């Protein structure tokens, strides 16, 4: 299916927002604002990439950290040896390749088995890298001459825009219809002519491209690579949290989830530095209990209900 014409709207919108974010925000926000915005935008890129596999197909991956870490690792290995942009691209493609390799066997397993298997694979990759680094006599690697924060921020904005468009196109294209059919009923999907395996592995590979680049940008920010931090399972968990909080059937939910969680934690952190993690936990629990379909899903439903009430006689929203 060719991209329908209305794609032009959201894609154009994403571009405008990205350009504004890239060139207006730095002028308004101070150094700290840029750091916060970079963090936010990198999270947006991550959740958009995650949703392509896990949101659309229902194969919930707890292993996204492996791709962030692998990208960061490749980036630091090639640091100084290849041009900067080449390193970024290499980071993305290495993660994508890693996903294609592990995706085939992993995606044979469904449901909870897949969730924990991806966690296991990510931990395996992490400790493999730790062992490789140790055997090379490395104890954390330093990068000197990383880009200025403002430039990292702009790259992150670009990346998030790419990730958003990828998630959007993946959602509303033939590919995305197939992925969602797999989520709804894999057997029926296969019987309806969907090459289930190709689609799943393809989605896995696609969803790993962006995190690889995110990993590279993350180590650019601190100028330091250490496997234990870059492969942290906490990162995978946080991605899922944002996506579930926002709703994960389309790119908007995760976008809202990432905004919600980042801004909330920023506000809490600033006003209640001691208690903020506790409050954040309570809010998360509340969100799930009150909005099981995520903030976006629930909001859409409420709006639909309201408009239905407003226009009596109309049967469907």
């Amino acid at each position: 299916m060719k991209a329908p014409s209305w794609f032009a709207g959201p894609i154009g919108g994403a571009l405008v927002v990205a350009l504004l974010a890239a060139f207006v925000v730095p002028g308004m926000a101070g150094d700290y604002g840029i750091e916060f915005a970079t963090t936010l935008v990198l999270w947006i890129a991550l959740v958009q990439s995650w949703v392509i596999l896990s949101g659309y197909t229902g194969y919930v991956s707890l292993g996204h950290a492996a791709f962030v870490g692998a990208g960061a690792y490749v980036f630091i290995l090639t640091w100084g040896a290849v041009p900067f942009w080449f390193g970024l691209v290499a980071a993305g493609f290495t993660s994508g390749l890693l996903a294609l390799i592990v995706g085939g066997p992993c995606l044979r397993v469904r449901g909870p088995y897949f969730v924990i298997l991806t966690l296991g694979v990510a931990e395996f990759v992490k400790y493999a890298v730790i062992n490789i680094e140790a055997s090379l006599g490395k104890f954390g690697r330093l990068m000197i001459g990383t880009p200025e924060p403002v430039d990292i921020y702009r790259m992150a904005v670009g990346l998030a825009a790419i990730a958003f468009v990828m998630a959007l196109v993946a959602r509303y294209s033939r590919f995305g219809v197939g992925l969602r059919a797999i989520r709804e009923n894999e057997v029926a999907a296969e019987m309806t002519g969907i090459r289930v395996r190709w689609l799943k592995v393809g989605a896995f590979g696609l969803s790993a491209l962006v995190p690889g680049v995110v990993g590279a940008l993350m180590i650019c920010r601190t100028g330091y690579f250490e496997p234990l931090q870059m492969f942290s399972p906490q990162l995978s968990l946080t991605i899922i949290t944002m996506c579930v909080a926002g709703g994960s059937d389309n790119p908007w939910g995760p976008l809202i989830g990432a905004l919600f969680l980042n801004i909330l934690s920023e506000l809490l952190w600033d006003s209640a530095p001691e208690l903020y993690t506790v409050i954040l936990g309570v809010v998360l629990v509340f969100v799930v209990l009150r909005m099981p379909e995520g903030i976006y899903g629930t909001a859409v439903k409420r709006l639909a209900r309201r408009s239905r009430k407003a226009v009596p006689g109309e049967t469907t929203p």
Partner: protein
Amino acid sequence: MTALLEVEAVGKVFGGLVAVSDVSFTLAQGEIVGLMGANGAGKTTLFNLISGAMAPTSGRVRFEGCAIEGRRPDEICRRGIGRTFQIVKPFPGMTVAENVAVGVLYGARRRTPSAREVAAETDAVLAEMGLSAMRDKLAGELTLAGRKRLEVARALASRPKLLMLDEVMAGLTPIEAAGALDMLRQVHETRGTTMLVVEHNLRAMMQLCQRIVVMHHGEKIGEGPPEVVIRDEKVIQAYLGAQA
């Protein structure tokens, strides 16, 4: 008439259990054939063997002259075999229109359709199945009759040359069942689709099918025009005996 589907001495064994044994029959282009038999006779297993959900232990299945047994279900679908499930499997979280669009997008065709073509074809199938009014409802919210209809619609959307229907009338009220019957006849009339139908409703089978294959304990025990088959002594004994 050329044979569209040829089932040759197909057998399936699960562990030690023989589910289907040495079944052969053919379907001609444009024919509607019924598959009858008591519960456990092996009808659904035979469906699974043809549609690729399972590989047969022995025998061949040819579609348009090509051996398809043991191939992946998605490939078989794209070759032109569509099916429904006895226990319905719609995509519950997608709308009715989206369910049908999956068939349009991934079913048998030579090139990827454009968005406009998908929309047009989806609308056409929805109209054909009488589902237009429910197009934006979630499939999971439909009644059983609606979901069964939707399954047929989704299968039809994939432009099958052969449509395999697994008890699309079971569990429906008599009025709903009559509606379904009319709908299938309509489809056959306008599209000329070949059909293989499993149904327990004897009257419906008599009205719909040109020929009936009867199975019992995994074996084929009879075949012929409906009015002949139901008078067959062996069939009555096996079928009614098991029913009673």
